[in-house]
């Protein structure tokens, strides 16, 4: 029992056990149902896309670590793998693999590492990769194949939202059923089709308090409200809010993209505005814009406002009186 050998550190001396690595592991675990669903619906294509984006994202991350002389062990923090899975999930299942690889390089390289790596990027990396691909390869990014469970003519196959927007599906009565939308028995991006699988993963993250409920709640509430007004006014021209929530990867965006810690706000009030903004912008794009989907651009658009929202909306400090100058 001696003085020397005692450790000096400032308080607090205890730490919660949760770490960044554990958080990332939980997010990956929450993505498992959607990954399984995509393997079920798109079989080999899903496996190939996940492998290619994972290899591209991890290799890009490793190259940046190398250049910055950082230990490669950080590759295992899970963040690049999450980006890879999310990127693959928002690609068309039959996208040529070299395009998917390029998307992975852009997602991690331009979307994340040029800003300084984990924690420093402004935009959601996976969505940066997807936005790049949408601009570079517009045809390939809007060519869809049906899931293995659906026997249809592949030549004219489209996603439910494209059916709605470009093929007059509502009046012709060819719009996908809510049941098919819920299960994922529809055309669409690799991981964005099965609402059920996404909700399972999202529920887990909410239960573990890994993501803030305000963000998915705000996104869903806002797009429901926006599309609901039009639907109530003219149900023969506009699809129901439920259709909009279950289609076009909205739940993928609301539960897994918009909730990305790094690119979403820190405070509750800013989170509400951010989430409501995402729902509104994606609603605007779907009803009046040139794209049938819109959640991707909505998230990227609102990512941009995060620093501003945080600067304007400082939370009230205990004992602070507001409303006086």
């Amino acid at each position, binding site marked *: 029992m001696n003085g020397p050998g005692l450790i000096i550190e400032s308080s607090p001396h205890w730490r919660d056990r949760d770490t960044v690595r554990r958080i990332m592991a939980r997010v990956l675990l929450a993505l498992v149902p959607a990954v399984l669903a995509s393997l079920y619906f798109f079989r080999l294509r899903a496996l190939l896309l996940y492998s290619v984006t994972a290899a591209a994202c991890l290799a890009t991350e490793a190259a940046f670590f190398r250049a910055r002389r950082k230990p490669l062990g950080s590759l295992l923090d899970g963040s690049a793998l999450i980006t890879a899975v999310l990127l693959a999930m928002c690609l068309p299942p039959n996208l040529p693999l070299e395009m998917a690889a390029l998307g992975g390089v852009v997602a991690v390289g331009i979307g994340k590492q040029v800003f300084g790596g984990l924690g420093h990027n402004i935009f959601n990396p996976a969505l940066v990769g997807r936005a790049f691909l949408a601009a570079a390869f517009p045809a390939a990014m809007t060519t869809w194949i049906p899931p293995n469970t659906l026997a249809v003519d592949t030549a004219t196959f489209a996603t439910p939202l494209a059916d709605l927007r470009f093929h007059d599906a509502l009046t012709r009565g060819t719009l996908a059923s809510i049941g098919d939308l819920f299960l994922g028995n529809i055309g669409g991006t690799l991981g964005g089709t099965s609402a059920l699988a996404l909700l399972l993963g999202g529920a887990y993250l909410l239960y573990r308090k890994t993501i*803030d409920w305000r963000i998915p709640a705000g996104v869903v509430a806002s797009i429901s409200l926006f599309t609901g007004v039009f639907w109530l006014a003219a149900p023969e021209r506009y699809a129901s809010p439920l259709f909009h929530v279950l289609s076009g990867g909205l739940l993928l965006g609301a539960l897994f993209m918009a909730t990305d810690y790094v690119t979403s706000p820190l405070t509750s009030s800013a989170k509400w505005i951010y989430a409501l903004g995402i729902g509104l912008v994606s609603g605007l794009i779907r009803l009046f814009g040139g794209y049938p989907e819109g959640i991707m651009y909505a998230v990227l658009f609102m990512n941009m406002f995060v620093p501003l929202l945080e600067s304007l909306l400082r939370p009230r400090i205990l004992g602070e009186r507001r409303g006086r100058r």
Partner: protein
Amino acid sequence: MKRRTFRRGIHPPERKATAGKPIEVLPAPEKTYVPFLQHFGKPASPLVKPGDTVALGQKIGEAAGSFSSSVHSPVSGKVLALDLHPFPSGAPVLTAVIENDGRDAPAGEPERPADPFALSPEAIIQKVGEAGVVGMGGASFPTAVKLAPPPQKTIDTVIINGCECEPVQTGDHRLMLESPREILWGAELIRLAARAGRVIVGVEDNKADALESLRRSAGGRGVEFALVRTKYPQGAEKMLIQALLRREVPRGGLPFDVGVVVQNVSTAKAVWDAVSRGRPLTERVLTCGGPGIADPKNLLVRIGTPIRQVIEFCGGLKEGADLVVYGGPLMGLAQSTLDSPVIKSTTGILAFAAGRPETELACIRCARCVDHCPMGLMPTRLAGLARFDLVAEAEKWGTMDCIECGCCQYVCPSRIPLLSWIRLGKSRVAARKSGKGTA
């Protein structure tokens, strides 16, 4: 019923293993080391010199001005030296080394008022000040100063704080079980001194037996009892006031700004001892425990006892225990030496194995520090501003409102030393302000 509480905060493991162990008396050591600074404010001025003989409870340091407190000898014996000696907060402090003659000879017949409750507020405050009573929950603010707010402030409510929200510690818990009447009598004296109407005792709901013990002793007198939710830092003044009264101490203000004075249960008992029996504050109850202590105990310890002796009485440090802390695991002060003495504010002496330091990662903006800050601050932002030395910005974002509870750093998954950065920011803001003041 939903228990009252404050907003945000954390739920660390409680680990209050010594809650069932009665308070034992630690024999007075052969030598005591009594610092002249054991309180918030100016050090006391020494009244003794080496070679002097002192009686038990004799005043050896006089309060230096109004923001100070007197210091008394915890034993009878001889003053060996006045010297700089290791002190819990790190920098050595002028300390009286007193050799114990083992007789515990008092200075004379103590003054015992016939009816302590008939004393005037001024007389109570005078006796509390004379006895060197300070806040024993850890802050060590001179109690006499706290009981006499500026004349324009009125106190309507006295809160007796029995939260003991730090993990591991159980000293206050035991005191509430073993000396409930003294605590309540002290609370009544505090109410009289502060000229307040209400007394509320607040206890966390993991110590319902302690509240029951107090309630039984009160016998229906006009004291209110409230269980509050077990959550850290429930025992912080601002949090307890918010939980019990729904009042918010204004930014930069003190509890008396909302008509409240908060006193810890140990302090209440010390007030009773001081006023009813003329007994100065020379001993206190503390917990010596944690996983690094062989036989954890609740102890009544003389002020000035080196912590080495306290730890030895509890079976010594276990193999691998390399972190010894004054206070609790969340706000405690780590020690480099076991020569430091127990002082008036020592709520606990805890030992842990520090564990390997973890690699710090970049902030991933998970917002946990924001979601758990009881003051409503944005710790990750404050830490970043301090890191880049943006002093004015740090002040604007409320860095001076930080109560240093450590919730932010506790929850941070990136292992960022948030509180250390915020402390740096606070000291920069303070330095800039004092610089302005003198210029």
